């Protein structure tokens, strides 16, 4: 599975970068940057990031 952020919805609040800082970061301009790939032990915090997103723009995509 990969992380996928719908950029049409994402409003760069940055709550995901608080929940899962290893996977999501806000750059100097306040724009979200993220890594699609992640390890199993990061999944729990990525799920927190998905939940906490105020505009619900984060998804997991791919096999299974």
């Amino acid at each position: 599975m990969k992380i996928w952020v719908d950029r049409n919805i994402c409003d760069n609040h940055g709550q995901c970068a608080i929940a899962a800082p290893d996977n999501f970061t806000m750059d100097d301009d306040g724009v979200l940057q993220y890594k699609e790939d992640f390890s199993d032990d990061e999944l729990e915090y990525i799920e927190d990031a998905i939940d906490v997103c105020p505009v619900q723009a984060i998804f997991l995509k791919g096999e299974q």
Partner: protein
Amino acid sequence: MTTTAAEVPYLDISHTDFAMASEAVRDARDAHWYARTNYGIAVLAYADVSTLMKSPRMIQGSAKWPQHHGVHDGLFHDWWARNLLVLEGEDHHRIRRLANPAFSPRKIKALGHRFDELAEELIDQWIDDGEVEFVEGFAAPFATRVLCIMLGIDEDEWPIINRLASTVGAALGVNIKQEIEEIDAALEELHRYADKLISDRQQNPKDDFVTRLVDANRDGDSLSDAQLQNLLVLLIFGGMDTTRNQLGLAMQSFIRQPHQWELLASRPAELAEAAVEESLRVNPTTRWVTREVAEAFEHKDLKFQPGDTVHMFTYASGTDPEVFSDPTRINLEAERKPHYAFGGGVHHCLGHFVARSDMQAALPALAARITNLRVVDGGDEWMPDSGNTGPVRLRIAFDKRDNTSQNQG
């Protein structure tokens, strides 16, 4: 491009006649993206509120609220200094990380049927009267009992929680210094409620919100008893007045647009979300969100310096004609960009899924049962239309909807 001071509008936001939902504010916004005020810069245009609300170069702007109003010690002073609203950086992020999962939209959704039942129970109490004082008859008990449901407090105790939260809420008014003794006393009582809940769930864990906060753990880190207490009090403090006021403001907006109310009644499940979002956009209880500049930067024609106070005007940005067609009117069928009634960025309202979910229960329940709404002459009284606003009283006359007897069996 440089803008001379003369071209930048000026708004006296502490004048007794100042109102957010006014031609003066809309004209200022249409003239320029910001205005000067007697207390900082007011950002007015949607695009600029959207950018600056989330700017990493600003911090939340009310950390020194008690000190600025002459309160230098005591229970409220100390509680405020440690609450999530004013914490920054890793201190803020750590608590937010631990607390967020309890506010997960999936967890909140599971409480939806409780919110539905509560709305019906309250409406039952006055549906045959033909009129209701909406704050007392619905908004206040609904908002407070939602908190009781969330926290697992006996719902019969809602008048006590309502009184305590309202008293502590006065701390955000300019008379905080005069009222600080009552505020501190009420806060002490809220602390006792919180302590009781925390120790109870530590001993008898349940499948509920407080237990999820008590059990919250990341890599061995968890919330201390003092942090749990502070957070539960913040939830009551931040969750009650806001929801009560927002429900009253939503009714005010829908009373002006009976066609939209009928639309909601005809397609409640489909339009509940839009009803809440549109009410928040055109008539937000939080009229502004304050930030303080932490690091010098430029935005368009303006240089921001550390320490500058910047207000994001939610009503002005939510009704910006650059972004919204027929901007001051609710349109449940329009595609709308997001509003900033819950703030934004790292300090985005923690409880917004709760507020959204409970109002998505309340508004359709009301629309399903009452129609032809009118404000009774002389029956409404309003807080000043500035910082946080809403009705003090809102007496509404209505007709019972014809299909009510069928729906209710």
